[in-house]
């Protein structure tokens, strides 16, 4: 029986296959709570969880907050606009001040890759990464895997296509780290300007030169968000051309396996990386991803609370 001994969850890179399986199976078993009339269990009663979000995120923060509340933990949300970070306080000082209020877990989103490792060295409570820079977004990776497992009953042997800006995507990194550990084969596509060097060395990963090659016979097609502000002027000409070569529409979706899953970490730019026909189509599992997000985050909160100081 796998055991989860980590105090923190910062990256799926740091977890074993067995630990990932345990987090996913716990989430599967916790899902039942979310469909009850009384959606609450007393497990983390008396625990205090701080959601420290240096980047805006309605979806992830809300999901973590609901997950904490369903486990009866108390939650506090702190975001940059209401915190003193704008007054020049360092992350370490902010964390130490928060620590003085005795939280059990800090769930943090931060724009700097690796900020959580820095934080973990400074504080004695658990740290959960809700997204750091272009590094990882482990809860998204786990919920993506859970959603795929729901559909296929397994992750081993799946062909998963991930299309978009891989370089700047923490979702892609967590998906790659998790899926390849679980035995899936990941195919990446995107403009070469958005493909990070040596990415195929991360695991069972194939970099495709066209989107068609990546989604051909795929079991899952994962589309990434294109952010005009991030991709700027040098990574692509404009959304129109991007959509033409790297957008998912009902036509190119036919290349994937019949009834292949379509996923997206959200928020979606309709008409850019995905056509609305696909977003709202029968193969879309996007809302299922969101639903599974709560269960996965409950699982993460539950297991780090039983983790040991490393």
């Amino acid at each position, binding site marked *: 029986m796998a055991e989860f001994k980590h105090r923190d969850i910062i990256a799926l890179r740091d977890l074993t296959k067995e630990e990932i399986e345990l987090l996913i199976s*716990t989430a599967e078993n916790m899902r039942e709570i979310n469909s009850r009339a*009384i959606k609450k269990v007393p497990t983390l009663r008396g625990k205090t969880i701080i959601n420290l979000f240096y980047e805006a995120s309605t979806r992830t923060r809300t999901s973590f907050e609901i997950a904490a509340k369903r486990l009866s933990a108390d939650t506090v949300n702190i975001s940059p606009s209401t915190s003193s970070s704008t007054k020049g306080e360092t992350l370490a000082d902010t964390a130490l001040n928060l620590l003085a209020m005795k939280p059990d877990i800090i769930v943090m989103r931060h724009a700097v890759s690796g900020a959580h490792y820095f934080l973990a060295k400074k504080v004695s409570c658990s740290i959960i990464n809700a997204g750091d820079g272009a590094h990882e977004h482990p809860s998204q990776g786990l919920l993506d895997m859970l959603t795929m497992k729901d559909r296929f009953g397994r992750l081993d042997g799946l062909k998963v296509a991930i299309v978009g800006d891989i370089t700047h995507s923490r979702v892609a990194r967590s998906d790659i780290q998790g899926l390849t550990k679980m035995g899936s084969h990941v195919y990446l596509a995107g403009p070469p300007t958005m493909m990070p060097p040596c990415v195929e060395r991360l695991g069972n990963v194939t970099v495709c030169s066209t989107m068609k090659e990546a989604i051909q016979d795929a079991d899952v097609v994962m589309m990434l968000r294109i952010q005009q502000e991030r991709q700027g002027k040098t990574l692509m000409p404009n959304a129109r051309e991007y959509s033409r070569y790297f957008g998912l529409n009902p036509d190119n979706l036919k290349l994937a396996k019949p009834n292949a899953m379509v996923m997206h970490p959200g928020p979606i730019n309709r008409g850019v990386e995905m056509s609305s026909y696909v977003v709202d189509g029968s193969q879309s599992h996007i809302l299922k991803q969101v639903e599974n997000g709560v269960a996965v985050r409950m699982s993460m909160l539950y*297991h780090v*609370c039983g983790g040991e100081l490393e």
Partner: protein
Amino acid sequence: MTDNATVLLDESGIKRALTRISHEILERNKGVQDLVLIGIRSGGAFLAEEIGRSIEVIEGGAVPVGSVDITLYRDDIKSQVPHLPVGKTDITFSLEGKKVVLVDDVLYTGRTIRAAMDALMDHGRPRSIQLAVLIDRGHRELPIRADFVGRNVPTSTKENVALIFNSNNQPIEVVLEK
């Protein structure tokens, strides 16, 4: 089975005890009307299914059977490092107004039953909760008693009572391990 273990009940003994408990449940509740069985994972869940089958044979009517995992309701969760794996709670019917028979393999301190009752309450408001156990080994730490008992076994706290299943999840014996 280890050398220093005594068999308390063999397969047929378990069967007889469960059949008797099934009769008692029906007698007390005057049939299967509004009756549901909820087994506590993992041992109790299999016993609940056995009792369910037995009641169906006796009465000719099926009783809804569910299972509850109490990990998230344990009062010792804080001392469990690392945290225990969470099992699946499977109650696909409403408990509202139902006469619930909670089924467990061994009744000991009563803490598991306390946790299970809390879990059930979160699923709705049953009309009543009764408790059926295969073995009552004593040493209660909470004011809880069983309504239906397969066998009372005096034990010391150093001993362990275990229900053994075969590979088809059929209970085959109850042993006392020293």
